[in-house]
Each structure stands twice: as C-alpha cells, then as structure tokens.
C-alpha cells in the first residue's frame, strides 16, 4: 500500500483539517466531523444534509455550498456516520423550514440516519424528511435483498434538490423534487482494480491484470460478475444497456449523462467512455441535454467508472442549470 497518509486511523480527521484550511467558505465541526456552510442556518430555507462513509470524495463535503448541501457528515472510511453526527448537523442547518436528509441506500447509512431523525425530532422538534437514493441497476431489487445501492444519482440529486431549496421551496416540495430525481435516474459501474482501505492495508479484493468486475458499488464490495477486460466501447455498452432497459428512457427523452471516475482512472479515459456513451445514446435516439464528466463519487483509489443517466424535464433541467458554488461543482455564479 502506497498512500499519502500519516496513520490510517487519522486520515479522516486530518483530511477535515485540510478541507477547513483550503476552503474559506466552509466551516468544520471537528467534534462531530461535519463540513458546513459558513452562512448556515438560513432562516426560512430548507436545510439539506447528507453524509456517508469517507473515501468517496468529493462526495459529500465537496458539495457543501450555495445551491447544494448545507452540511455533510463524514463517517469513518467507508463507514456511515453515527446518529450523533447527523443530529448535530440537522441542528446546525435548521433555519426553521425543516431539513432534508439525503441518504444512500446502504444498511448502515439508512439505520444511522433513521436513528438521527428520531433523535433530532425528539430533541428539537425539527421536521426531518429523508430521501433514500437507490439507483444501481446492478443490484437485484427485491424484498430478499437490502435493495439497490445509492450511487451516482446521489450527486445529481444533491445538486437539483439544493437548487430547489435555494429557490425557497418548502420541505415537502424539495423532498418531492428529490424523489423525482431518484425515480428517474439509474446507474451502473465497473471496476478495473480494487481499492485499498488504509486501515486494511491491502486491496479489498484481488483482480487479475486481464479482469474486471462489472456491477460494482462504491466500497470495493465485489460486483455482479467478473469478466475478461474489454475495450471501452464494450464496457460502455455493458453499463448503458442495462440502465436503458431498466427505466423507459424512450426516444427523444432528454437525459443528463454522468460519467463518473471511481478515483483511480484519469479524466482522459472518462472522456473515452463519454464518447462511447454518446454514440450509444445517439443510436437509441436519446438526446444528452447536459453532461457531467469527472470523479465525483469515488471509491478511494479504485480504477473504473460508473455511468448515470437521469431522465429530465424542463423543471429538473432548470434546477440543474441554477447557480452552484461548491468546491467540487461550480457554475452560473
């Protein structure tokens, strides 16, 4: 393991100090490991918080700022934050209009956010609504599993719900927009290498030079199947076709196309992938209304990519285009 760390146990704490030093608009509550906007709480504005295990940067701390999140709770590496953290964040951002919790569908995240919402309501009476993202088509969605994982759609949802909150919509309206994003977005990912969790010190799984894992999540958990490494065009088809098949993305429906790097893949390869995605969608008559290419929801040093398609209407598009000013996503300001 070659990593720029001091002690594996200190990675999250030291990174939070780094973020605080690098981002003058942000504040950090070190006790609760919360990154929050310097101007929060805003009276009358719905607060939006998210959080999850660390190791997915820039998710979520990189998306704290105008037009997106009010606060992000950082858990230990790949481990959801504890209820105390979300409870403290909920208090920090509640400007009287209530708080939206954006939760990725992982058992730990769901349970800890659930406990936090119960505690926050009991303590302050804050109104909390949760939206759970579950966009990963690689996972069989049935009562016999924990349900689909929340992956790339989380980023798009935080942007769009953040814009809705910034416009002054109330909590139910913001939650409704968030639900609409989740309902219309689908994702799938591929890993070319495992990630290495600092505390474990070695790759989470072994993957041969000529192999890839198709259908991975963002924690180094194994994927749906292991296949021989293929050219980008084949991989793109392997990811896009199940997404298109899962939601009726019909001819002419515009989408936001998001090609996401998992942490260890250079941008030039992501553009190679985007080129393939563009060709495939063109062949299906699905127009790309907006695009996002880069590493936004990562899995430490994992090489690989995920593709997310979000079917959009005028409302979602205008919220997507609204100004955003965060360390990882910034436009229109």
């Amino acid at each position, binding site marked *: 393991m070659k990593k720029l760390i001091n002690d594996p146990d200190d990675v999250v704490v030291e990174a939070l100090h780094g973020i605080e030093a690098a981002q003058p608009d942000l504040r950090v509550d070190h006790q609760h490991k919360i990154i929050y906007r310097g101007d929060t709480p805003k009276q009358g504005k719905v607060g939006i918080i998210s959080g999850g295990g660390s190791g997915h940067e820039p998710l979520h701390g990189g998306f704290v700022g105008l037009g997106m999140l009010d606060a992000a709770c950082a858990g230990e590496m790949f481990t959801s934050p504890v209820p105390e953290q979300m409870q403290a964040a909920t208090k920090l951002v509640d400007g009287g209009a209530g708080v939206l919790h954006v939760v990725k569908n992982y058992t*730990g995240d769901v349970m800890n956010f659930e406990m936090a919402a119960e505690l926050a309501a009991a303590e302050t009476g804050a109104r909390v609504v949760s939206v759970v993202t579950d966009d990963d088509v690689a996972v069989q969605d049935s009562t016999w599993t*924990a349900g689909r994982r929340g992956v790339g759609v989380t980023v798009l949802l935080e942007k769009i719900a953040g814009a809705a909150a910034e416009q002054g919509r109330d909590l139910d309206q913001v939650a409704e927009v968030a639900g609409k994003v989740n309902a219309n977005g689908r994702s799938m990912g591929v890993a070319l290498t495992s990630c290495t969790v600092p505390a474990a010190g070695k790759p989470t799984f072994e993957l041969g030079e000529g192999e890839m894992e198709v259908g991975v999540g963002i924690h180094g958990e194994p994927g749906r199947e292991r296949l021989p490494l293929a050219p980008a065009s084949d991989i793109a088809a392997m990811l896009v076709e199940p997404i298109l098949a899962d939601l009726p993305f019909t001819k002419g429906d515009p989408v936001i196309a998001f090609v996401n790097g998992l942490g260890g893949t250079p941008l030039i390869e992501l553009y190679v992938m985007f080129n393939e995605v563009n060709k495939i969608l063109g062949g299906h008559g699905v127009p790309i209304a907006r695009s996002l290419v880069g590493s936004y929801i990562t899995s430490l040093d994992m090489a690989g990519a995920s593709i997310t398609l979000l079917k959009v209407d005028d409302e979602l598009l205008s919220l997507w285009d609204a100004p955003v000013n965060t360390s990882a996503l910034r436009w229109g300001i």
Partner: protein
Amino acid sequence: MDENVTTAVLEEWVHRFAHLVAENRDYLTELDAAIGDADHGSNMDRGMKAAVAALDASPPATPGALFSKVGMTLVSTVGGASGPLFGTLFLRIGSTLGDTETTSAPQLAAALRAGLGGVVDRGKAGPEDKTMYDALAPAVDALDAALADGADLAAGLKHASDAAAAGRDATTPMLARKGRASYLGERSVGHQDPGATTVALLLEAAAEAAF
C-alpha cells in the same frame, strides 16, 4: 436458583469481549472484505475500545447502566450497520435489566431475548438471512432451554456459546438477504458472516467470564 450476578462479573464479560474483538480485528475485517466493505473488525474494535474506556472512566453501578453505557458508546462510535445493531442489542439488554443492583440468570436470559428483539426491530432480519441474527437467536434459545432444564448460569452460557458458534458456522452456505452482502446474491454463498462471527465472540466471552 438464587444466583446473584454482579455488575463486576458483567463488566468482566464486556472486557473479555473487547479483548476477543481486538484479537480478531483483522480476521473480522477479512471476513467482511469477502462479502462487504472490509471495515467490520476495525469498527467493532474502535467501538469496544471506546466502551471499555467509558466504563473505566466512570464505572456503572448497576448491570442495566453497564449495558446501556456500552450500547450508547457503540451507537456513537461505530457507525455502519454494526453500530446501530450491536448498540441496540446492548441498549435493549440494559433497559430490560433496569436499575436493580444485581441481576439473576432468568433476568439475564430475558434481557438477552429482549436484545435479540431490538436487533430484529432495527435490522429487520430473520432466520437464514446470513446476519448476526443467525448466531444470536440460537444462543438465546439455548440459554433459555438450559436454564429450563435446571442448568446454572455458567453452564447455560456455555450452551449458548456453543449454539452461537454453530449458528455462525451455519451462515457460510447461506445466501445473504440483508446488508451489504445481499448485493452479491449467489456470490455471497460460501463465506462466513462477520456479524454472526462477532456474536459468537460475545457469547464465547460470556462463557469464559466468571459467572
């Protein structure tokens, strides 16, 4: 049977559990790496170290307070799924024991059963979902059965420990239906569940403590 179980003995149980978790930290993480996200050992170790530190800092006066403190510490330090699940287990044991000075074998058995109920409430798992439930439920059943047969608490906990170990082993061929391992479907078969493994350590620690 009028055995009185003191807070000190229960504290020894918790210490032994913390020790076993620390010893098995890498093993638990390896089990988790196979079907999860490779953090179970380090998370539980962090939580139990914090729990022992909290007990040492202000020793609880009653069995109920002891388990509640361990539960609160786990919820607020572990995260992931293990924090709420093991935290709820201990919290429910603590609240069931209440504020009596000492406890007894039947009270402890009832508290463990309530703890199992807490895990089910929080995690919604049932038999053969390949989770901690599959080690905990047989252990609780074995303790009840042994006590009903007239065994003393020490012997009952030995039965419970054996049942937890058997339950842990039985998770290996199961198809995971809860938690992160469920994402793997058929690929989860053939791996021992890390949560069930930790439960077996908890009961092993109980069997070793001087009840």
